[in-house]
């Protein structure tokens, strides 16, 4: 491992700008690392031996000049294979590039590779990928979290300086937590969804996976903004400030019991790390008090009606007619549909399509979809109430540290509980970040693994959120790195 791989994206960009680091040298180091990776983090990589063109001629005033970025394979990249982690899109090369990716390359970044993920973003362990699971660099017997598991593992394992992912119910924050890095999910509408393959459109949001909070701000700054191709995008008014705050004087932090002490399946080690983090917040001058989110405990139930409902419509386009996989249909249309979708989709995707289809069916709509929408409204109101008293809310990101491969694959409900603490913020559409809060042993013992601290702020208060996260990050001083051994 060479030194350059330890630089943050911001540091590297500064050194390249100052001529202290060659852009080619930096990129080659990462291309080489990615080419030799053993975590199954990448589904496609830039050829390390050249052929790379655009981006090397860095435009003046390019804040990400020369910085390679790993891109979750849920973002369309023109003429570059884009699979969404699904066999149904094997070999598909999109005719266009996602707005978020284009804005990164416009800022001077280079697409280093496309990272592995749970199929269509549906999963919390990366075991639902159609191309095999990603391994956690801290312990290869464990999962990296999901669905942006490839992006999280790549950044943690020094296979990329930074990455982007997507977060629907925790898919950026939870893997960031399990891999010991920073994961930011901005406000819904901050970054364009154009070119981001849809799972649940009213929840999906592009997010960042980085080594530190400053890098998260740097990437967000490049990507945010209204896009006329996405009617739901609005950007962040006033833009994004790079974080600089060192203290938390006068800031109020609420701790929702429902998503911390009372969270289902909360591990003792995670709880202890969380308590230590609360202590540090107080030491920095922050006020910490308990708060209530009375409906948050129903977040997961509402989410697993709403997200599959939207997914059932979003995934209807994979029908074998125009692109991607097409199974032989015995000359019959229905047969072709059935065989294509049966062969192309994995078990979890099929489960969610069925759940969503059922929830929207005539006679069940009100009982399921309508009710879940009302729960979502209550949760939005809960957060609005809490933000009347607090500037931030803090919880553990995941109730547990990284779990072992296969540990939850037999029980969808156990798997869904991985997102217990992250889903309510997704339903409310508010900006939320996970930063490493230290290491903890899993329940039942074993080597220590990363724990994430989740911080949430009101909609479009990204700059304030990043500022607080930056201050807490400094106080925690997390400097552990994955051993990259066999565990």
């Amino acid at each position, binding site marked *: 491992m060479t030194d350059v791989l330890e630089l943050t994206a911001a540091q590297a960009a500064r050194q390249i700008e100052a001529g202290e680091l060659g852009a080619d040298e930096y990129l080659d180091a990462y291309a080489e690392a990615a080419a030799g990776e053993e975590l199954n983090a990448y589904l496609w990589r830039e050829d390390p031996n050249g052929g790379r063109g655009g981006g090397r001629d860095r435009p003046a005033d390019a804040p990400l000049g020369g910085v390679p970025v790993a891109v979750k394979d849920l973002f369309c990249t023109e003429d570059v294979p884009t699979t969404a982690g699904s066999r149904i899109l094997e070999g598909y090369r999109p005719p266009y590039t996602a707005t978020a990716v284009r804005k990164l390359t416009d800022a001077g970044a280079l697409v280093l590779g496309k990272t592995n993920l749970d199929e269509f973003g549906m999963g919390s362990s990366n075991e639902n990928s159609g191309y095999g699971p990603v391994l956690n660099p801290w312990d290869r017997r464990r999962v990296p979290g999901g669905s942006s598991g490839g992006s999280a593992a790549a950044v943690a394992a020094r296979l990329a300086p930074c990455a982007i992912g997507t977060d629907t119910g925790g898919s950026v924050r939870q893997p960031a937590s399990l891999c010991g890095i920073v994961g930011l999910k901005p406000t819904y509408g901050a970054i364009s969804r*154009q070119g981001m393959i849809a799972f649940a459109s*009213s929840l999906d949001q592009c997010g960042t996976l980085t080594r530190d909070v400053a890098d998260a701000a740097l990437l967000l700054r490049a990507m945010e903004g209204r896009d006329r191709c996405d*009617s739901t995008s609005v950007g962040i008014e006033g833009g994004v400030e790079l974080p600089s705050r060192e203290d938390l004087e006068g800031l109020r932090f609420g701790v929702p019991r429902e998503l911390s002490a009372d969270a289902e399946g909360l591990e003792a080690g995670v709880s202890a790390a969380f308590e230590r983090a609360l202590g540090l917040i107080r030491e920095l001058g922050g006020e910490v008090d308990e708060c209530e989110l009375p409906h948050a405990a129903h977040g997961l139930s509402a989410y697993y009606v709403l997200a599959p409902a939207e997914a059932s419509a979003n995934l209807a386009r994979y029908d074998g007619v125009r692109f991607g996989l097409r199974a032989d249909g015995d000359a019959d249309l229905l047969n072709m549909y059935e065989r294509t979708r049966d062969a192309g989709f994995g078990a979890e995707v099929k489960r969610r399509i069925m759940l969503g289809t059922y929830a929207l069916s005539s006679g069940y709509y009100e009982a399921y979809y309508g009710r879940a929408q009302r729960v979502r409204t209550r949760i939005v109101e809960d957060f609005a109430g809490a933000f009347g008293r607090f500037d931030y809310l803090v919880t553990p990101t995941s109730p547990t540290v990284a779990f072992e491969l296969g540990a939850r694959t037999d029980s969808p409900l156990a798997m869904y509980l991985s997102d217990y603490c992250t889903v309510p913020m997704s339903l409310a559409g508010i900006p939320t970040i996970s930063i490493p809060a230290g290491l903890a042993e899993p329940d039942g013992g074993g080597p220590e693994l990363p724990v994430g601290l989740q911080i949430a702020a009101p909609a479009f208060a990204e700059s304030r959120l990043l500022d607080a996260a930056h201050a807490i990050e400094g106080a925690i001083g997390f400097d552990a790195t994955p051993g990259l051994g066999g565990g």
Partner: protein
Amino acid sequence: MSVPSGYEAVIGLEIHVQLSTQTKMFCGCALSFGDQPNVHTCPVCLAHPGTLPVVNERAVRYALQIALALGCEVAPRSIFHRKNYFYPDSPKGYQISQYDIPLAANGSLAGVRIHRVHLEEDAAKMVHLGESGRIHGSAASLVDFNRGGTPLVEIVTEPDLHDPGEARQWAQLLRTTVEQLGVSDVNMEEGSLRCDANVSIRPPGAEELGTKTELKNMNSFRFLERGIAAELERQASVLEAGGEVAQETFHFDPRTGSLTPLRSKEYAHDYRYLPEPDLVPLAPTEQMLREAREALPELPDQRRRRYEAEFGVPEVTARQLAFDAELGTYFEGALEAGDGVEPSVIANWVTGDLAAARRHFGADGREVAPAHLVAVARMVVEKRITHASGREVLDALVDPGSSIGDPEEVVESRQLAAVSDSSELEAIVERAIEAEPAAAEKVRSGNPKAIGPIVGAVMRETKGRADGGEVTRLIREKLGAA
């Protein structure tokens, strides 16, 4: 073609209007008709992964004009929904349409209430190779996505129509109305105007509606009328035979004029409507509404009322002029040229003798300049020619075999000028009285109806160029019967 006796027909229409915007409803592809298949497509209208719809503002403006022309209330925030169904003509697997909160509702046109007006996107065109022309039993199916995503406005009426002919007339009025707005080609053959009907029958005076059936694919107004009439007959015969009308959807076959029930699988969808999360609510601004209102031209029904009120044109004539955009425009042109001639007189010439001449000569007939029509009407009013001669002049002007284009020339060359010299006419009248002594005697002795043979003799002599009223007056005067 009317309603089977002993029943009342209840008919509602569902009309789809393709808007003539430059681009599609949710992407930037150009609209086209008859181009090479699949040239007007992009990642959005082919539903590539990650693509998002963006509402075409022009389409919203056009739809607002239709809604306002139909007197609808525009929703402050209407919602797009996904209407889910699997079929190759629907690349996303759902159609973006409107569901519980449409763009506009509660309007009316010529006494028929409008239930709702909403915006949606058209499906792609399927071509089924093989005998049937339908997907079942076809050897292969091809999809042309050029049409996919064309902006559509769906107009749904309340079941306020009670006769197939009335339904046809109303649909024609709707077409003229939309045509006047300039927001659609409204061509039924090309599919830019499509009409479905919901039809049921019930005993007269019954409160409860009968079971309705849906008729699709009637691609002309004639077929619309015929399809509804056929379905009313069918429902009546089902009831007569003691049966019950089943809720079904029928496909009208214009070649045979028959109705074929669609297999239940083809229409019994559970569309699993879902609010479209990729779009925000459609909230027209005050300015958009004002602009749409200001862009409204005079509409057929308003035009009819104006013709009646301003020009004293009788209702039937006013309706004929106002509901046929071409005829109305012609009438307005003639009014401009018609200084001095009463508008109601011009209206009669346009809807009566000119229309008759046009019908007679058909498509080959020549156009008559509005000024020429007015010239003919004026000559008749001023008694320079008789009404019959006027009709003859119009015929000559329309006749493709004639080369004379000026009414004066027709009058001269055919010597149609009325006998206006009173001494000449008096001499002719005297000769006619002498030629018909028996009739003359009866008139003298107080039987005015006996005047006919004498008038006839005068007309023979003048070849119809004498004014009938003047001739009668002169005869009576001479016979002392005035």
